[in-house]
């Protein structure tokens, strides 16, 4: 049947230059290019966006805090050790995160032989004493990024439509005005 909803891509969003990319949600698309367009329309309607990454769900390895507590690690990934290292992007969500809008946040890159190897390295490399609720590991080849050259045009609709913002509607002043006219009448 041709009528499918297509694979799922996780979407990472950067609101302003210099900030970290965070996971905002997911979209469905037949390929990464269309996923990026859908992601822009779904997640960057406002207030602003500077960059987006999309990753097919099949390329993401995820671990939760609970899984890591229960897990017994193999002493040595013998098959993995033979593979040549490749770059992995690491994302994590802190256990006591007070951030209500962002899921996992980009933490950095490691070179590793496998996703498990990348996780092990990340747990050491990015250990700052903060308990982590969720780790995501993504080979960097699986990330499709929005074009930095096209930031202006690609994300322009997020900025230009001011009537999408509540403060565009001066309801408080309008109510005050209404009260005045009632008083005067």
């Amino acid at each position, binding site marked *: 049947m041709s009528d499918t*909803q297509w694979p799922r891509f996780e979407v990472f969003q950067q609101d302003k230059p210099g900030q970290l990319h965070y996971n905002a*949600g997911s979209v469905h698309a*037949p390929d990464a290019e269309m996923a990026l367009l859908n992601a822009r329309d779904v997640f960057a309607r406002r207030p602003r966006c500077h960059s987006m990454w999309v990753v097919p769900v099949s390329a993401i390895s995820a671990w*939760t805090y609970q899984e890591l507590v229960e897990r017994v690690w193999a002493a040595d990934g013998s098959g993995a050790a033979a593979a040549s290292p490749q770059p992995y992007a690491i994302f994590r969500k802190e256990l006591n995160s007070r951030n*209500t809008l962002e899921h996992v946040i980009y933490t950095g890159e490691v070179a590793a032989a496998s996703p498990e190897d990348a996780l092990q390295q990340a747990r050491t490399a990015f250990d700052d004493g903060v308990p982590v609720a969720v780790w995501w590991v993504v080979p960097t080849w699986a990330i499709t990024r929005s074009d930095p050259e096209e930031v202006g045009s690609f994300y322009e609709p997020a900025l230009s439509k001011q*009537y999408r913002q*509540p403060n565009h509607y001066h*309801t408080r002043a309008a109510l005050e005005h209404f009260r005045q006219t009632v008083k005067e009448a």
Partner: protein
Amino acid sequence: MSQTDEEKLAEFEARIARGEKIEPGDWMPDEYRRQLIRMISQHAHSEVVGMLPEGAWITRAPNLRRKMVLLAKVQDEAGHGQYLYHAAETLGATREQMLADLLSGKAKYSSVFNYPTLTWADNAAIGLLVDGAAIKNQTMLAHCSYGPYSRAMVRICIEEGFHKKQGLEMIIRYAQGTPVQREMMQDAINRWWWPSVKMIGPHDSDSPNTPVLKRWGVKTKTNDEVRQEFINEMAPILLELGYTLPDPGLHQDENGDWRHGPIDWDEFWQVVRGNGPCNKERLAARQKAHEDGLWVREAVAAYAEKRQSVMAEG
């Protein structure tokens, strides 16, 4: 060593008590997953069907500003549906199944979208009352213990702010308008008041899911608590603007709460069961939109396929 289910449940409840979010991949009771899929998919369907009553007025907006505002609002509802389908997918529900259930009529969505929009003033009433009631519910759900649902709710609440305010702005304008304009707004309020009061859900005494949902931090308030907040906000402002509300029992009690009169729940359940004024029309509109979009999905798939083969050759 693996934990027993009782130990897992105890830890799960302790995590919720500590204010931690439950994330995809974490252990959760089957009932928690089942209730969340039910709530989130219904919520997603409501956003999608919710585009229809107002969408019908985009081509008939009274001026360009109102047209742009309404377009942006309806586009937001489409986006909100997407956030919510995503949240349900993290629990194992599939997009294909959820859509199939919506299009076959098996899935439920908010009863409030089964009423007609008869005049332009209905868009004002929907903005203030329907979105106002939805925001009360969604603000509560933003504190939900399940991470993906709570994050979707936070995003939606931020965006819904303008939906409600553009409605209130119109209601204030109508209050300052000609007698005919005020009459038109009053008529819309008369028709949308009760559906908005009812959409918050049955009384707590008829809401069997509420205790377990509260215990697991899915809901943090009961339907009647949310309804009271809604009426306390809406009644004074509408009365001050010179409108009346179609509830002869409405009054302010000694605590300052605005109490409603008896609610006609038979009517509510009739609409939920598919016998509202527009149930059939809404479902037919969704089915038609899905069928009419088939060529777009085929074109997109063909383009993706072609691009892949070009890249493989190149």
